[in-house]
């Protein structure tokens, strides 16, 4: 049975931090189809539209009927473990640092034999459950676990390298004054975070949510104003080397577009908080997080941005707000590429309108902040990269994929 994960010991300040290395990242274009499936939390394999044969590894031609009509289709994640090995030698630095490393060949119920990273509790000849995860290099890999979840499954040290589990990690939630901020603090506490730092801007403004956070255990409330470079720098100097999961939940929503509400100050504030704020956080916290990507079993793992789904397409009712979200989303892709060098993942959650004072005029369905936070943290644990939360966000993303011109014209109604 998988051993329970022990909380990290106090770090020896003299010992050199393990430098980040990446598992091999050389993948074909076809294989990145798997990455897309993994990023959205699906277990999908290429399936031939003509003969239904399921293919693996990814390719461009059906190995059964030679058709080129292969589509990614959700398939059963079940299989049987046929052969296994435990490596005590590897040719790659990333794995050398982490030996022993357990692997298996699973024959999938849908046909192909699949080489997998293998959970400790899997037994040869028995049923397993596969998933598409994303490794430290940012690419899809297949892992197999016991068919029924086993005790302490999440503590499997090898598989923890490919997950972004908050358990025993330290989290910084940028804005503690929103209801979503409170929900996130609770959700991370429930997920076993060792310490939760919560940012507080404008200390003269009292927030009931922050007051509630203050009552929680293992929480430190810290001054943090993302519009103030000195404030971000000071906090990073204080706790930068302790943040293993960054949660950028900066939120400043004011309704209005361009002609109907011509107000540069509002637009400026939105950009200052969402866009420049992300730049400041990335510049101050990014370097140390990237350097600590391989710092033991509890090193830094993820940078989570909570964006509006209107980052994908401008909602004219929230015109400048949407634009600031789009700017931040674009920036997050830059951050993703740069943090990838340390094996730190950038995860973006996209939420629809939330049930709060600033969304009074938004039609339902609206999201309940607490449930939203739980779903965000759940998806983070599963290793999903782009997390749409709620029907509105899901629909926007789907419509953008299907026909962006349609949603551009229809969204104002």
């Amino acid at each position, binding site marked *: 049975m998988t051993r329970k994960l022990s909380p990290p010991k106090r770090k020896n300040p003299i010992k050199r931090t393990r430098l980040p290395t990446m*598992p091999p990242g050389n993948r074909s274009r076809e294989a990145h189809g798997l990455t897309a499936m993994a990023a959205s939390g699906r277990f999908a394999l290429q399936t031939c539209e003509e003969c239904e044969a399921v293919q693996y590894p990814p390719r461009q031609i059906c190995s059964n009927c030679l058709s080129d009509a292969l589509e990614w289709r959700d398939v059963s994640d079940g299989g049987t473990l*046929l*052969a296994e*090995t*435990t490596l005590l030698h590897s*040719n*790659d630095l990333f794995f050398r640092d982490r030996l022993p490393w357990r692997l298996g*060949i699973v024959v999938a119920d849908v046909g192909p034999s699949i080489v997998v990273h293998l959970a400790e509790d899997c037994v040869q000849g028995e049923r397993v459950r596969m998933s598409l995860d994303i490794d430290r290099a940012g690419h899809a890999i297949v892992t197999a676990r016991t068919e029924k979840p086993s005790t302490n499954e999440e503590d499997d040290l090898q598989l923890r390298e490919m997950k972004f589990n908050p358990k025993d990690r330290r989290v910084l939630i940028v804005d503690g004054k929103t209801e979503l901020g409170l929900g996130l603090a609770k959700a991370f506490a429930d997920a076993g975070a060792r310490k939760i730092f919560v940012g507080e801007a404008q200390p003269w403004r009292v927030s009931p949510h922050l007051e509630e956070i203050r009552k929680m255990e293992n929480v430190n409330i810290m001054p943090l104003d993302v519009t103030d470079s000195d404030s971000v720098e000071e906090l990073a100097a204080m706790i930068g080397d302790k943040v293993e999961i960054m949660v950028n939940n900066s939120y400043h929503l004011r309704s209005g577009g361009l002609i109907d509400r011509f107000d540069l100050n509002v637009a400026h504030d939105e950009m200052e908080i969402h866009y420049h704020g992300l730049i400041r956080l990335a510049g101050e916290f990014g370097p140390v997080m990237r350097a600590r990507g391989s710092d033991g079993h509890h090193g830094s793992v993820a940078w989570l941005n909570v964006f509006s789904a209107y980052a994908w397409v401008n909602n004219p009712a929230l015109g400048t707000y949407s634009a600031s979200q789009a700017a931040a989303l674009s920036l997050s892709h830059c951050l993703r590429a740069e943090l990838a060098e340390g094996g730190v993942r950038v995860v973006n959650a996209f939420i629809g309108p939330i049930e709060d004072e600033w969304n009074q005029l938004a039609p339902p369905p609206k999201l309940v902040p607490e449930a939203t936070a739980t779903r965000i943290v759940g998806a983070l644990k599963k290793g999903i990269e782009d997390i749409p939360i709620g029907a509105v966000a899901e629909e926007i993303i789907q419509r953008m994929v299907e026909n962006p011109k349609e949603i551009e014209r229809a969204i104002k109604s």
Partner: protein
Amino acid sequence: MRRHNYEGVAVCVPVTVPYSRYSLKSAHWFCGRALADLISKAGIEKNEVDGFCVSSFTLNPDSAVGLTQHLGVSPRWLDHIPMGGAAGGVALRRAARAVQSGDAEIVACMGADTNHVDTFRQTIATFSQFANDAVYPYGSGGPNSSFAFLTDYYMREYGATREDFGKICIAQRENALDVPHAMMKRPLNMEQYLNARIIAEPLRLFDCVMPCAGAEAFLVMSIERAKSLDLDYATILSTIERHNAFPEDPVQIRAGWAVDADDFYEHAGIGPEDIDVFQAYDDYPIICFMQIEDLGFCAKGEAAAFIADRNLTTQGDFPYNTSGGQLSAGQAGAGGGYLGIVETLRQLTDQTLGKAVPNAVHGLASCFGMINYDRGLCTSAAILKRSAA
């Protein structure tokens, strides 16, 4: 249609460019030295060789084409065979047909590779699209992890033990002791074998080949030409090759030989019981078991019992991998795919580097290569016969 025989074709001049663990020389150097050795032993000029079969992992960015300019030759028949461990048997049968048809008169077949300090890692890190996408990112064990799977599966399926595999490795080591260029020449006993350090469960150190630099080569020409040059030669009774056999098997437990063995022996006109010396491809002992079974020496799953009461050394009743094979001599890249043919030829033309098998007339060399994803795709084999003269 009945397959044509290999009448009139001679295989001769076994050449080995001595192995070294690492080398600063290029693959071109190993090919060049092999060719120089071939023509000097055959007593011919460079340009009398009008056909080439070349196999190498480390000629990059060149292929056999670039090699012609490098070595200053103008062949009228050229083949590059990128089939790794299976290349030797395939080169032999293509060269034989070229000579038989008159498309070439003398074909030089060579498997040659260098091994710089980081060569092996680079080779396996970019081995194939499927391996890049779906194997190498899984622990980066290279062939060790692939063969660990096959070994694990076979052991559970047929109850073979590590002692059974050890018998193969120990016998091969004994055969290697007299071979000057063998990488490993200290005797190996069962205790050392069983207690060696673990590489990839259930494989331990002595189950795994050691990559090295070196070359293996031979010439194919007409029997008349070989006689006129006064060369000892062997003839070809049959050859086979097969690629991606049994794709429906979830884990590889048999390979292409099992498809072609009946045709192979029928074509040769002899059976497995007539084989006097057997060279099996041996990067890991599991694959030797599969060859013993798939080539009909015993039934599937019975290789362990088959070797249990046989002596596998040169002086034994089942002479096998008589130069120590790759497990003791080292794996000179694609040279490993030619080793079996070259050693069989040595035994049948009395040019052995180590001990000779007494009265060997029929030799079988079998080749295996290219773990493209989860299994080796290419198999080939040839039966050679000592010339009557």
